[in-house]
Every structure is written in C-alpha cells, then in structure tokens.
C-alpha cells in the first residue's frame, strides 16, 4: 500500500490475486487482515448484554482479545477459493497412488452426509430419539461384517491406524483374559508404517518376517518366528505389492497353532470385494479404511474411518457402546461384556460412516464385486502396458495395484522414482506412491482404482513412457505446478510452523500490526 492510504495499516495488499496466472503466490490470511475488519454475524437472542467482567472472574479474564485474523467475508471467500486453485484433487484428475485407493467419491454420498437429520444430531441424543442414526450404524456394521466375513464390528476407530491399535488392544485383552502374557507381533517387511507403530503403542514388540522372491510372506521364515511369545500377526492380503498371499490358509493355521491371532490390515480390501473374505481366510480381526475402499473422500488427509470387525470369540472385547437392534425392533446402545473401553470421544466419524453406508447401498453386492473386478483389471492391464518401459519386479498376476521400479532407468540415465513422480505432476497426474514398499528399490506403487477409465490409464502409461524415454530435466520438475520443487530440507532445518514464527524480513514490516503474538497472550 503506498502513500494514498498512509495512516491505514498496510494490510493485505491484494484481495484479488491471479488464480488463472498459475504461479502467483497467495498471501496468507494474516497478510490480508486489516484490524477492525470482520465477517461474523450472530443471531438476535434478546439476552441481557452483560459485559465480560460480569461473567468472568477477573483473574481468568484475558485483557485483550485473542489475535486470530481480521478479514471480511469477501476477502476470506476469495482467499480460500484461490487456495483451491492451487490444489490437486480427485475431482480434477487421477491419483494413481498405491495403497491409498484414491477412487472417485460419488456425489450422492456428499448429499447423504449433509442431511440435516444426520448432521444436526447431538451425539448424546437418547437412543430412542436417534433411531435413524443407530439403525444406520448397526446396519453398516452388519454389512461390513458380511463383506469381510466377520461376526461383529466397532465403528469407533476414526482411521486405519486407530483401527490397528484397537485391534491390537483386542488381541491383548483376549490373551490377557486367558492369562497369556505374549510380547511379540509379527509383521512382514513390506508392511505399512502404521503397522509397526501401532504394534509399539499396543505394547508389543515388532518381529519382522521377510518376503520371498515372489513378493509374498516367506512361509518358512514365518514358521521360524512363531512361538508361544507371539500374540499374533498383522497382514494385508493382497499385500502392499498388490500380490495375493496364496498361502494364507497355511499361514493362518500356523499362527493359530501357536495360539496367535491374525490381524487383517484392510487397506487393500478394494481388491477382494465380493471375491473373497478375510474371515474365510482365517483372520480374527479386520480393520477397514472406509476412506479407501468405500469412497469416503480423503479430505486432504482425513477424516476417514477405520471400523474393526472381529470373529465371534473376540466380539465381547469390542469397544462400546455398540448400536444393536432389540427384539422389539428398537435400536439401543449395548456395552460388550468385556469391552476394552472407548476408542473415540463419541461414536466414531459418524458422517464418514454415513457416506460409506450410502456408497454400499448404491453399489450393493453386484456393484462391489464389479469394483474389485475392474480395480484388478486396471492394475493388471497397466502391468502389461508398462512392462516395456519400467522394471516390474514381481511380474505376475497382481491384484488392485502394482509396483514398478526405475532401477534400470536409474542406471541408464539417473532417473529416480522421485523424479518420475515430479514429472508426472507436470503431466497432470498425481504422483504414485514412491519408495514404498521399502523392499523394492526405487519403487513406484501404482493403484489405478476402478474409477479411472481405460483412456485415462492409457494416458498415464504414455506419460510414464515419455518420462522414461526422455529423462532430461526431470530433476528440475515440476515446472508447471503452482510452485516448483519445494525445498523440504530447508523446512525442517529452519522450522517455520506458524506465520508468527517467520523471521521478519524487510518486506514484512508492513504486516507488523499482526506480528508475534507472544506479547499479547
């Protein structure tokens, strides 16, 4: 702000930005702020207008308002709308992102999750006045049990990792009840990071079992590790390489023989919907990621939902309360006899559960099987298609995802998995998962999902081919995104976790009126 507005705090600068110019930066809310500006508006209540001092004892009353931001409705709408123009999303394009099942999220589910009869219910509403919610939750749990072949389920865990930990606590409670003090949980070397982290938080030690050269759990190595100290094993099937563990029945028998339990990490459930069920494979505990398999949108990192279903013998330990249909047709809450206790403030991520429920209603048995079929079709087609241009470490029939690698390309031209990922961003695709699973060198883990058309897959394959064939400049990619390659190291080295923590540069002087809040608290 120059002379004409001298005297007015030089806030903001622009409320206009340049969304269509691609690579402009967007000022922060704090730079857009101008003290005294506001957007709020409250209803008329006709209550007495007691002032703060009449309501709060002096020793508790803050002397100045907490500094937050000062923006007009117009400016904050423009600000956040412009931010959305700097953000990739499923609704804009494909996310061939392994392990994450970034499928299209049907709009009908958005509607389901915004019905006032669902969004308006306080979680402490007595059961007889929330029959719709209880029915929805009970029926969802029932359907999830049928899908996974299990007996009963809790919907409380708000994400997959929370489900894992819940499962491990169920394992612990079950062993404890029988007076067993077990200390170890086995996980494959291809497992997702949440698995070992959950094992630790569940109070167990992680024992890693290696994969064999076919990409599956090495059955002999597993047998070696099984003893009376093993509480159980955590597996995904198909595993994180997208391969089906064909020996699953043998593994189950072996684990059960030493008195251990089998935990199913449901992140890859999309591949087997209507095809096979963890319960039939011998699993005792299953978590599902509704935000993967059942189309709850990822929301930029959450919320998701991670229900846990169990076999009959583990049902009494489930977290509660659980919604249950009484003989009279009324739904009520029930606390399982030997419940491990609550794992969520209330009943889980209820609206995410409602979304998943509507998705299951819409797809049904026939639709869910179609999901699995096409998810697997797409991934196998891509494996065939990419074989000529990338290494395919485990080139045999896969399920819903595949792992390719740039090992040869790296040798030939220095092209690394990360470079491919960044180049793909330029091509208008989100990057695959890179460097995971850890057991594959220069891994690119690709899960096309069933909602991407063959034309999209072909475009992806062509883009990957192009990148492999002309690696020059890949280190400088991406060049056409809202920002170029981001300096991640600097972020960690010189931590700026809030706007107030920024070192005040000369150009920031203008914004000093909203500066470091420490003096104000």
């Amino acid at each position, binding site marked *: 702000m120059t002379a004409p507005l001298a005297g007015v705090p030089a806030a903001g600068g622009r409320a206009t930005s340049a969304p269509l110019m691609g690579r402009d930066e967007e000022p922060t*809310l704090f730079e857009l702020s101008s003290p005294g500006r506001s*957007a*709020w508006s*409250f*209803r008329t209540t*006709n209550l007495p207008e007691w002032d*703060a001092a009449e*309501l709060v004892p002096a020793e508790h009353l*803050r002397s100045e308002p*907490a500094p937050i931001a000062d923006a007009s409705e117009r400016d904050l709408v423009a600000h*956040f709308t412009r*931010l959305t123009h*700097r953000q990739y999303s499923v*609704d804009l394009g494909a*996310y061939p992102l392994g392990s994450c099942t970034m499928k299209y999220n*049907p709009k*009908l589910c*958005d*509607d389901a999750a915004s*019905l006032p*009869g669902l969004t308006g219910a306080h979680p*402490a509403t*007595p059961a007889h*006045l*929330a029959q719709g919610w209880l029915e929805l939750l009970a029926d969802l749990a029932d359907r999830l049990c*049928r899908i996974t*072949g299990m007996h009963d389920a809790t919907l409380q865990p708000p994400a*997959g*990792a929370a489900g894992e*930990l819940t499962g491990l*606590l169920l394992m*612990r409670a079950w062993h404890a009840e029988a007076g067993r003090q077990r200390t170890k949980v086995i996980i494959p070397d291809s497992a997702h*990071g949440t698995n070992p982290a*959950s094992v630790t*938080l569940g109070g167990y030690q992680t024992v890693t079992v290696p994969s064999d050269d076919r990409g599956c759990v090495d059955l002999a190595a597993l047998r070696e590790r099984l003893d009376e100290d093993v509480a159980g094993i955590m597996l995904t099937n198909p595993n994180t390489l997208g*391969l089906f563990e064909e020996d*699953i029945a043998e593994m189950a028998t072996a684990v059960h023989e030493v008195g251990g339990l089998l935990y199913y990490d449901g992140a890859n459930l999309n591949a087997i919907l209507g095809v096979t069920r963890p319960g039939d494979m011998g699993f005792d505990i299953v978590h599902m990621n509704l935000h993967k398999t059942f189309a709850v949108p*990822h*929301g930029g*990192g959450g*919320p998701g939902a*991670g229900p846990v279903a169990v076999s009959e013998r583990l049902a009494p330990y489930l977290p509660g309360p659980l919604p249950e249909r009484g003989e009279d047709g009324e739904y009520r809450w029930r606390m399982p006899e030997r419940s491990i*206790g609550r794992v*969520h403030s*209330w*009943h889980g991520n*209820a609206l995410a559960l409602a979304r998943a429920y509507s998705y299951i*209603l*819409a797809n049904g048995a026939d*639709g869910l099987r179609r999901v699995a079929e096409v998810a*697997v*079709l797409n991934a196998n*087609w891509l494996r*065939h298609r990419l074989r000529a241009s990338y290494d395919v470490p485990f080139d045999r029939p896969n399920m819903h995802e595949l792992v390719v690698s740039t090992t040869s390309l790296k040798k030939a031209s220095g092209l690394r998995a990360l470079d491919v990922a960044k180049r793909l961003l330029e091509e208008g695709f*989100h990057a695959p998962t890179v460097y995971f699973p850890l057991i594959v060198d220069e891994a690119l883990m690709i899960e096309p999902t069933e909602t991407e058309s063959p034309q999209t897959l072909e475009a992806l394959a062509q883009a990957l081919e192009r990148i492999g064939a002309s690696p020059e400049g890949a280190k400088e990619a991406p060049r056409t995104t809202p920002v170029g*390659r*981001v300096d991640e190291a600097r972020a*960690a080295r010189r931590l700026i*976790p809030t706007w107030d923590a*920024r070192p005040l540069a000369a150009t920031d002087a203008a914004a000093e009126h909203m500066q470091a809040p420490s003096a104000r608290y």
Partner: protein
Amino acid sequence: MGHFVPHTDAEIDAMLEFMGLSSLDELFAVVPEGLRLAVGEDGEGGGGQAGPRHLDIPDGLSEPDVAAEMEHLAARNAVGAELLCFAGGGAYDHEVPATVRRVAMRSEFVTAYTPYQPEVAQGVLQALFEYQTMLARLTGVEIANASLYDGASACVEAVNLAAAATGRSTAWVSRGVNPNWRDVVRTFAAGSGHEVVEVDLHDGVTRWPDTATATSSGDRTQQPGAVVVQYPNYLGCLEDLAGARRLADELGALLVVAFDPVAAGLLHSPGSLGADVVVGEGQPFGTPLSFGGPYLGLFSCRKDHVRRLPGRLVGETVDTEGRRAYVTTLRTREQDIRREKASSNVCTNQTLIAVCCAVQLAWLGTTGLRELALRCARGTRYAREALLRLDGVEPLVGTPVLREFAVRLPVPAEMAVERMADEGFLAGIALGDEYGVGLLVAVTERRTRDQIDAYAAALEKVIR
C-alpha cells in the same frame, strides 16, 4: 449396481484381450478356489455358514433410491426445532455460517489426498499453515499440529508425549476432564502401559493430591509425567491453572491443559498460564454436531517438544525459484519413516475438519471470537439463573462457570432428559455418579431468550 465404474463392456473385453485373458474371473486365479465367493444369491452365506458362500448383502440401488433410504433414516432422528439442543459435554450446537460450509466443502479440499506432493497441494498446505497459526495464537503455545482425530485422541497423545518427555509413565488426570476422553485415555493406556491416576473434584474443581506423598515415595514411576486438567472443566468450572502449573513444577511433570476453544475467547490462554501441551475439541468451529464425528483433535505444545509432536506439521519454506511454499515437515517423527520407533501411529487425520476450523476461525476473527464467547457466557448465565429459580433445582457446585453448568434436580437426571425430550428439548447430559446426580446444561450463541425461557418452563413442568 453403482454407476461409478466407467468401463463399457467393449472396453473390458479389449483390455482382457490385450492381456490374453478371456474373462474377469480369470483375474482372480491367484485366489485359492476354496476361498472364493460365489456370485449371485444362492446358498446361505453371511458369516461363513453352509451353502456356497457369496457376498450376502442386497444388490445396488439407484441414486434416488439411496437418497430416499438416507432421508428415511435422517427423518428418524430428532434434531433442530424438534429437539432444541441444550446438551454439550464436548459437542456444541454452534452456528456454521454459509461461508464456511460453502468454501471449506469445495471439492478440491474434500477430494484431495494427503499433501505428500507439495507442488500440487499448496491449497491444503497453506490452509493448514494458517490453521496452525491461529491455533497457536489461541492456545498461547508456539507449535500446533495439523490435527488429530478428536479431543480424546489429542488427550491420549498429550499423555504419551509427556511420558516420553519425562520418562515417567504415570499421569494425573483431573476428573474435571471429559469422562469420555478419560475412558479413551484408559483404553489406550492398556497398550502403552501408562498408569492413569484420576483426581477428584471438590466443589467443581480439582483437588490435587499432596505433592509431598508423590515426590517422597522415591518411586519415580509413581511420580506423574503429566498433570492433566480441563479449562473450563467438564462441569463448566474455571480451574486454577496457575495452581496446576505450580503443582506440575513441583512434580517435574508437564502441564497438559484440555481447553475449550470457544471459552478461550474470554479466558487467558492456557499457554500464558503455563501449559506445556494444550489439547481440545475443535468441533465448535465449523463442524455441525454430526452425531459425534468427524470432529477435530486440537493439539499444540511448546517448541521444546516439537520433535515429539504427534501427527502432521506444516512448515513454510521456498521452492526452487525462491517462492514461498508450504510442506509437511519434520516427517521423520512419523510412522511411515520411523515405523516402530514413531512417537505416534497417526496417518490419516482430520485435515478437512481442520480446514473447516480455519475458515470458521477466519470468519470469527479476533473480534468475533470474543463476541462468540461472550454470547455463550451470557446465555449460560441467563439459563443458569432461570433454572435456579425453579423449585427444587440447585447448583451442583458453587465455583464460577462459563460455557456450561450443572444443576441438581429433584428427579433423576435421566428421567428429566427423557421427559424434556417430549417437550422438544435435548435438556442436557445426565451426569454419571462420579459427579453426583445432576444435569449438565450447555448454552450456545444460538439459544435465544425465548428458547431458554421455554426450556425453564418445560423443566418446571417435568420436575414437578
């Protein structure tokens, strides 16, 4: 069947042909025959009974049929004017303005993935950076993460952080902390091995044990690594945070404060009163009641603990051309890199709810947050006075309250809640035995004088 798979039959055939396959079923040849489900509806199935097993749920419905089914369920919940909300206990009936709903629910925010590729995720990252900044300003400590699941999980993570920071596995948790949260803390303590010592209230505020006993015992593991207190607490009472800080200092423990972000508009920030870790439930900012979720775990802490911070953290940096950019940072704390040594297993969090919270906080702004807190406090006082005027209604505690209050009724609270529902009110939450028989009542800025008067009149009838 759902309509979300784009492939035509011709395309499927061509794709199969390319691979030398002749049917979709062949794709599943790797699944042992004995494990495969039959297609169709014959047999019994469901839970693995006799007959050829198949996926035993109904076939798919059309969009309008699903909508009708969902509307039918939604209609079977009493909400809004049918059941005017005076319940709180960690979930509050605040206004969510059109601006927040419409901006935060834009599909780029809703359908984005976790921002692991910062070059195409500046939208989410910047919104989270702004969220972190506003939360740090509000809590008065320097670092805020990008969200945890809910208030309860934030509380669990705070106890874990304190244990790791102090090397002590005991936590003293005030009974003024939300009882559901304490339940969750206990559940997870079974895995972490932490010992949770619950500390009673006296006239609504925590009466901490004699520090001498704890420190003199010599058994360091008995000494708490965390002192956890809620402000205002579950009964709406204003705890003595300065006292708790002194206690923590004497014990060498961290002070964890579970704060109410709305009340914070009028109260000293927990940070200014000495909190090391501040946790809370973010639902009041931008999230409807939603039968309890998705909500938002608020988590912030002092800079010293940043390397133990659970969950994601966004930091400012630059791109190759020196332009300001945002990125998730200190990722080495996280499970995907540290695996069994990670301080937390959180992966998917509540980002979208954090974005809603950021937009709502921006909408409130500095002046609006204060106004909101003031309006809630006014309604609370007005309602409390109105109820206390009724015959047989007595205050449960005498300590000053802010956003919520508890009363003792001449009838069991459960019964009052039940009967009040017939009058069109969700009267509050019937308190558990640990608090003595009582009703916990919350009043937000949405409640008008007329509504409160009608509530009092109905309660008078109900307790007669």
